[in-house]
């Protein structure tokens, strides 16, 4: 589904990502783990187009997307969430989801000027879809709350739902459990399992190893900007360099 070849990303001489190549298989949750500073989030940003690659190539669904900006990658179904909460704080939860929805005729300047009669049918359809997602993720009662007022776990769910409104082919999740109360972590993991079972492909950076154990196969290990191991968690635990770099303790 996604193939990244020899990706490099330099910051003024510092090699944050140093020749990383990975394949993401459809219908699975692929884990991306590694110590702090391994280059995982930078690599995710390069895949999503938030940061340009210094060199290398990215092929998604058979198309070379290396030079495409983030918004065009998202429109092709490669959608990311962020390590830090990135909700639209002054928009309600429902609005956060509606912003992400494509195919709304009122989203252009001309459509807006033509008025409600022109775009209301799309809006009504998308509101029903968004409310369906909110119900599935248990946040329907919060639809009119400002997203900025939610708890950390709820913000994570809003980000995931928002990404889902785009009908992604591949979802890039950057530490979805970060800043989330432990009681909510398993709940989010359950939702991700459901999405995988529905057929969604996910590439996920995560530090919570019990979650990686539960959800991810295969798992890619990065350290110092390079891939140092790849396989199931059980297999990785038998690789000394992986254990030394990350799994000790």
């Amino acid at each position, binding site marked *: 589904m996604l193939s990244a070849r020899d990706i490099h990303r330099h910051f003024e001489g510092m090699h944050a990502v140093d020749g990383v190549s990975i394949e993401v298989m459809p219908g699975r949750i692929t884990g991306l783990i590694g110590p702090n500073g391994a280059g995982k989030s930078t690599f995710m940003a390069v895949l*999503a187009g*938030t940061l340009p690659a210094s060199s290398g190539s990215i092929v998604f669904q058979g198309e070379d997307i290396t030079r495409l*900006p*983030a*918004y*065009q990658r*998202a*429109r*092709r*179904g490669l*959608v990311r969430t*962020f390590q830090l909460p*990135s*909700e*639209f*704080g*002054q*928009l*309600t939860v*429902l*609005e*956060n989801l*509606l*912003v*992400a929805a*494509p195919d*709304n005729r*009122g*989203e252009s*300047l001309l*459509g*807006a*000027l033509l*008025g*409600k009669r022109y*775009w209301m049918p*799309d*809006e*009504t359809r998308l*509101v*029903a*879809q968004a*409310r*369906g997602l909110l*119900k599935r993720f248990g946040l*329907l009662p919060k*639809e*009119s709350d*400002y997203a900025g007022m939610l708890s950390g776990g709820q913000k994570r769910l809003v980000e995931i739902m*928002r990404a*889902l*409104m*785009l*009908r*992604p*082919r591949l979802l890039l999740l950057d530490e979805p459990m970060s800043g989330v109360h432990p009681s909510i972590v398993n709940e989010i993991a359950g939702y991700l399992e459901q*999405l995988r079972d*529905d*057929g*969604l492909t996910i590439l996920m950076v995560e530090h919570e190893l019990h979650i990686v154990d539960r959800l991810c196969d295969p798992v890619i290990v990065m350290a110092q900007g390079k891939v140092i191991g790849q396989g199931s968690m059980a297999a990785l635990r038998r690789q000394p360099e992986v254990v030394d770099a990350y799994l000790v303790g």
Partner: protein
Amino acid sequence: MNTYYAANLLIFAGVDIIACLALNLQFGVSGVVNFSFIVFQAAGAYAAAVLSMPPDTAPDYSFQIYVGGYQLPFPLPWIGGAVVGALLALPIGLVVLRRLRADYQAIALLVTSIIANTVINNARPLLNGAAGLALVPQPLDGVVNTSTNSYQYLYIGLTAICVAIVWFIAARIVNSPYGRTLRAMRENEVAASALGKNPTALKMTIFVVGGAIAGLSGAILVGFLQVWAPSTWLYPETIILFAAVIVGGRGNNVGAILGALLVPVGFEEVTRLLGRMNIGPPNLIPALEWVCIGLLILGFLWFRPKGVVPEQRRVFPGAPAVEEETRWVVGKGAR
């Protein structure tokens, strides 16, 4: 209160309301800190002036030099003012809004304002330099008698029609999915981009719309004042409009109108009246006006950042219509 004073107050109020609605679309709704806003108003004013004036070789106009001089009938100069405001937004937006980060955009736009004023001030053959343009014909000059009280009322009416049109456009934008996307971009541009939104295109469209509306406000103003010079559109004028939007309430059209009435109209009017009372040294009151505007901005940003009329929360009415099946989320992509 004489008719001229009332007309003066109402027309200035109309012009400031139009300008604040435009700045609210750019800054309040979209987060584009357009510190060069006054340049677009000035461009509209100059355009309306040279479209309505005769050539500078005409007998009464030969004391000034300027390009154009087309003597177009009303409302073409006003439409021309709006078009020039929009056209000017294209090159400035393409240079400033594409690659720079938001804070650098603000600095670049401030510098643009200073450069534009300096160029027009010094390039006399273009628009008569620092002396500016005078004897700009009023709308319908020659068709109706422009020196009567009735004409003042007519001008107020024309301004009110423009306010209504701009209000209509601003309301449609703010209350639409397009407006929602602009607000999302304001909140987090990188996240909006990751959701398939093109921030440059969004900024460019609202920059052009705001430029057109600002140009219209300038055209209305110059038709009333009949003079226009670089000293009337120095960059601090933009700060007054920012103060109005911040005080009134960012992102809310009603707030923008309230801000226009409180700050550029109310505040300056009070200052002008105080100036007549000969309090302290000659320039004390105008200087204090700037101090007060600065304090007003700081005070609101500190104590009431959402302004007097905060942005409305959008609640979707009716019992939740829920689409139970959500497997559509997987796999199609948005394209």
